[in-house]
């Protein structure tokens, strides 16, 4: 079994961190194989930023699949550019604060999370990726939420002041994810 996720957005939206935390947590909590593959443009900022996470029982072959089980899009251009990669039956996670286009594909599930808005409400626009990570984990349950939280904690170790905010962000995401899973 192999599960392919792509996360796409602007540079600066924390797309890479989202993917990396998820993959790292998987590595440490399971004996599955997992790869995280970032894909950058030439620009240091503001270009597109995508990453791929593959979780597999067997060795991981292509670290970036050509067909995705899950797709997270953080902005409109990414939606248009990558939606075709999502397999029928796959799940699309969208940052519904700024991705406003209508989703016409009928063969997929759609999870809408207004992460930009939620982050601004929490007082720090940067935590939008942690909210989305929560939502993804809450919805897919691909790794236990605690493990992901442990990873976040560990990686943010150097800046403990940020932990409470991130905890709130992650849990808010988890809740939305879990809720939509049940819906």
């Amino acid at each position, binding site marked *: 079994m192999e599960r392919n996720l792509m996360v796409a957005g602007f540079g600066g939206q924390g797309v890479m961190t989202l993917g990396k935390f998820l993959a790292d947590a998987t590595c440490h909590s399971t004996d599955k194989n997992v790869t995280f593959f970032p894909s950058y*443009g*030439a*620009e*240091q*900022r*503001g*270009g597109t930023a995508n990453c791929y996470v593959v979780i597999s029982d067997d060795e991981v072959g292509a670290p970036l699949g050509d067909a995705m089980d899950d797709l997270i899009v953080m902005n409109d251009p990414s939606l248009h550019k990558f939606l075709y990669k999502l397999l029928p039956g796959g799940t699309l996670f969208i940052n519904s604060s700024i991705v406003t286009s209508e989703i016409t594909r009928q063969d997929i599930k759609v999870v809408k999370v207004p992460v930009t808005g939620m982050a601004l409400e929490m007082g720090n626009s940067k935590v939008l990726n942690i909210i989305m990570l929560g939502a993804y984990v809450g919805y897919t349950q691909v790794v236990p939420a605690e493990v992901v939280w442990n990873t976040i904690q560990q990686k943010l170790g150097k800046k403990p002041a940020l932990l409470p905010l991130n905890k709130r962000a992650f849990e808010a995401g988890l809740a939305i994810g879990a809720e939509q899973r049940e819906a």
Partner: protein
Amino acid sequence: MEKIYSRTKLLREDMVSGFCPGCMHGTIFKMIGEVLEELHMESKVAMVLGVGCCGLAKEYVTYDNTTCPHGRGCATATGVKRANPETLVFTYQGDGDLASIGLAETMSAANRGENFTVIFVNNGIYGMTGGQLAPTTLVGMKASTAPKGRNPKEHGYPMHVCEILNQLTAPYYLERCSCNNPANTRKTKAAIKKAFQNQIEGKGFSLVEIVTSCPTNWGLDPLDALGFLEDKMLKEFPLGVIRDKSKEEA
């Protein structure tokens, strides 16, 4: 009302630059375009881009340009200019490009007194590759390959390109500018124009150093980076004309 300022036509109308927010590469390419328009040289220009963030300009400008191997701008420009002396040739190079890997090419072309212009953008860091130590990185300033900051014992001191070139006999005009405020930005534009004019008049080698910020790799937002530029960078790299042979001639 009349439009008195808008972006030079020599940048592609339909395009947004790939530079980071606040990056002065954008400002400089804008001014180069303005100067070329003012001098009516837009159809006679050949820009030689170094390798660095400036490479993001290759599709952004509307005039002839080439990208050469990292550091070899002054060699490539030597070829372009000598083969076609009527073209206005300039290189555009970062501090890593010009003063690290390309130091021999820069100095040798300057020493030969090649009749082209160098726009040297000194942001004290490797921008494009993510913040590694540059020859011009300030003492104590952190870089991704100098995690504890530049340490004179290990890395030596920042290099002063204009002062070094000033030890050569041939160069005609060397000035250090910045874009840290509107007045200096205008001075920079004037220096670029002067350097291009020197070339048109066949005076030989001119170099305009522009001390800028790299908000992204300095890890500062654009306005804080502006502060660092003024407080630290311009202390190490004082602005002014280092050589102007037209003054000596006069």
